């Protein structure tokens, strides 16, 4: 029970009054931004990254962990009360959750989402604690060629599997990789894509890119669609569950966790797939059980399952991030950037170099998760009120923090200019329906990937075969090829019937 002891040590490190305060602030901020549609956890992290420069690494990570889990939870509130998912992972929750709310069972829907999130987050974090060391010891053995291959796999999966259009995914990836190239070449010190500008020689900071694309882009997009018909909100009291609700919820919670965690840990990450699978599973099981099948009219199982899957995958994301230094979601990319700022290099060596930090982080995830439940159950009506904040005031605040954050990166007005450029880029990709995730992943993974590729090629004296000389690397390349080839084949031989929900959501966004 070595892991358990280490985790208890982590608790000892995390459970100071000051740290708890940061966890509470993180959870509140996270829920705040999660509730507001269009502002996800990734954007919140990017905005708040500069604010935490004054803190030490542990406290900053604790706060980030709180923001992350809080954001995941906040999205479910909006889904249930408004039928407008706060973030993409809550799309499935909205289907049954909103119908429950319309039937006057909003309190139960919110409660099952909150408690399900708590259970899934707790189990997921414990799984991270048990898996990460194992994977890390294994990952020390693998060489640069395999790393390169795994990163390639992550990029291909994120660009082609998630989202509606593969072409758009790869366009986003190409833009991201290009941004990642700007600056001095690490080994030859040649300037690349700088256009002779000295300011660009250091490369473009990920914070400026993320804040620009997420915050400024979203603000411009909202400004372009400022006046919209208000949405009917369903009034809500304090969430609670009856005995029957508990009986019907616990199994979907566990099934959702089991579905969500592995998907979160895979390089293709994201919570969209597992929440979708969880919803389908629960609907099928309910149909088989017969009797009181409420699916389509507000079944509590349809909220409990996807919400648990959502949070379990949020926890699963930490496995590749901590063990391999490989971010698989936009939020993980920002977390990776945050760690780099503190001189922490996530990857196989992290577990041995800075075990205290990791175990404290994992312990604080568990604490944050508990705080989430304690704080948010009573506060649900307050969060619902948040939706009445007029957009001009809201986005003025976001713009303020965005500019502050971008400026604090290098104390240079040039960064503000860059921020505006990336803001316009963010607006453009929203306009043309290009996904954000591959772009951000390209910016952060591109340079890491280049380092590994250079390493592999240096070892082989420049021969391309250096990229293929590990059996595991070849195996991963086979997966890459499969990921590119198989989905179109499946789509060809099976009529697409399951994508309707995503399209529906998209239509609402556009109209």
């Amino acid at each position, binding site marked *: 029970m070595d892991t358990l002891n280490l985790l208890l040590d982590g608790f000892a490190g995390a459970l100071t009054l000051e740290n708890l305060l940061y966890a509470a602030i993180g959870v509140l901020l996270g829920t705040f931004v999660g509730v507001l*549609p269009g502002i996800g956890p990734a954007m919140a992290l990017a905005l708040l990254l500069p604010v935490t420069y004054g803190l030490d690494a542990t406290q900053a990570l604790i706060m980030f962990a709180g923001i992350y889990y809080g954001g995941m939870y906040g999205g479910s509130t909006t889904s249930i009360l408004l039928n407008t998912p706060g973030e993409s992972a809550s799309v499935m929750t909205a289907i049954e959750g909103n119908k429950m709310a319309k039937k006057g069972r909003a309190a139960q829907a919110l409660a099952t989402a909150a408690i399900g999130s708590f259970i899934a987050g707790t189990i997921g974090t414990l799984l991270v604690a048990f898996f990460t060391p194992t994977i890390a010891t294994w990952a020390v053995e693998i060489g640069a060629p395999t790393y390169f291959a795994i990163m390639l796999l992550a990029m291909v999966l994120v660009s082609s599997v998630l989202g509606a259009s593969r072409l758009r995914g790869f366009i986003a990836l190409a833009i991201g990789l290009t941004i990642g190239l700007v600056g001095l070449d690490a080994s030859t010190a040649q300037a690349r894509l700088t256009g002779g500008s000295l300011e660009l020689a250091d490369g473009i900071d990920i914070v400026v890119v993320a804040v620009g694309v997420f915050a400024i882009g979203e603000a411009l997009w909202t400004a372009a669609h400022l006046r919209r018909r208000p949405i009917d909100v369903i009034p809500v009291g304090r969430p609670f569950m009856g005995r029957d609700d508990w009986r019907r919820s616990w199994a979907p919670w566990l099934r959702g966790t089991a579905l969500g965690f592995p998907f979160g840990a895979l390089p293709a990450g994201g919570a969209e797939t597992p929440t979708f699978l969880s919803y389908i599973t629960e609907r099928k099981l309910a149909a088989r059980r017969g009797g009181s099948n409420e699916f389509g009219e507000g079944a509590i199982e349809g909220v409990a399952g996807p919400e648990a899957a959502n949070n379990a995958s949020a926890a699963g994301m930490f496995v590749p991030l901590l063990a391999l230094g490989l971010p698989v979601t936009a939020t993980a990319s920002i977390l990776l950037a945050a760690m780099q700022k503190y001189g922490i290099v996530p990857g196989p060596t992290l577990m041995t170099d800075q075990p205290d930090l990791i175990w404290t982080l994992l312990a604080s995830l568990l604490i944050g998760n508990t705080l989430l439940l304690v704080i948010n159950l009573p506060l649900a009506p307050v969060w619902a009120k948040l939706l009445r904040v007029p957009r001009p005031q809201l986005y003025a605040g976001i713009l303020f923090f965005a500019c502050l954050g971008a400026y604090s990166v290098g104390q240079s007005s040039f960064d503000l200019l860059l921020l505006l450029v990336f803001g316009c880029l963010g607006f453009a990709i929203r306009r043309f329906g290009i996904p954000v995730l591959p772009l951000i992943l390209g910016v952060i993974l591109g340079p890491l990937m280049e380092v590994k590729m250079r390493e592999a090629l240096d070892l082989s004296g420049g021969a391309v075969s250096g990229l293929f000389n590990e059996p595991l690397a070849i195996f991963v390349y086979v997966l890459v090829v499969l990921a590119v080839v198989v989905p179109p084949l499946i789509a060809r031989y099976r009529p697409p019937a399951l994508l309707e929900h995503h399209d529906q959501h998209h239509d609402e966004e556009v109209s």
Partner: protein
Amino acid sequence: MAIVIGFIPDKYGEAALAHGLEEAARRQTGVVVVNTTKGDALVDNRYLGAEGKVTLEQRLADSGVEHEIRQTMGGDVADEILAIAKDVAADAIVIGIRHRSPVGKLIMGSVAQRVIIDATCPVIAVKPA
């Protein structure tokens, strides 16, 4: 020719609606109920949803007065009321008003004040009982 009523689903709107209906009956004319939002927040409790509109429609029908509901979105609330008053050549505008301290008025502005000052027809300002 009609009475224009500025309506929001709270006690101020109710007071305006009740008095507006009385006024319409006395003058033997119809009412145009205006419900409007700036549409700049995700949720606006002062804007009637589909259900609220049906309820209001039903209540107006029960009152027996010739009626029409106009919901607009996007503009300033006072401007919208005044525009509709002009459009239907209103006999009078009925609005509910609330108590505001001078400081409160400075921060929040006052829709009622602007309607009263800018209207070209009589304005009846009603306080809830």
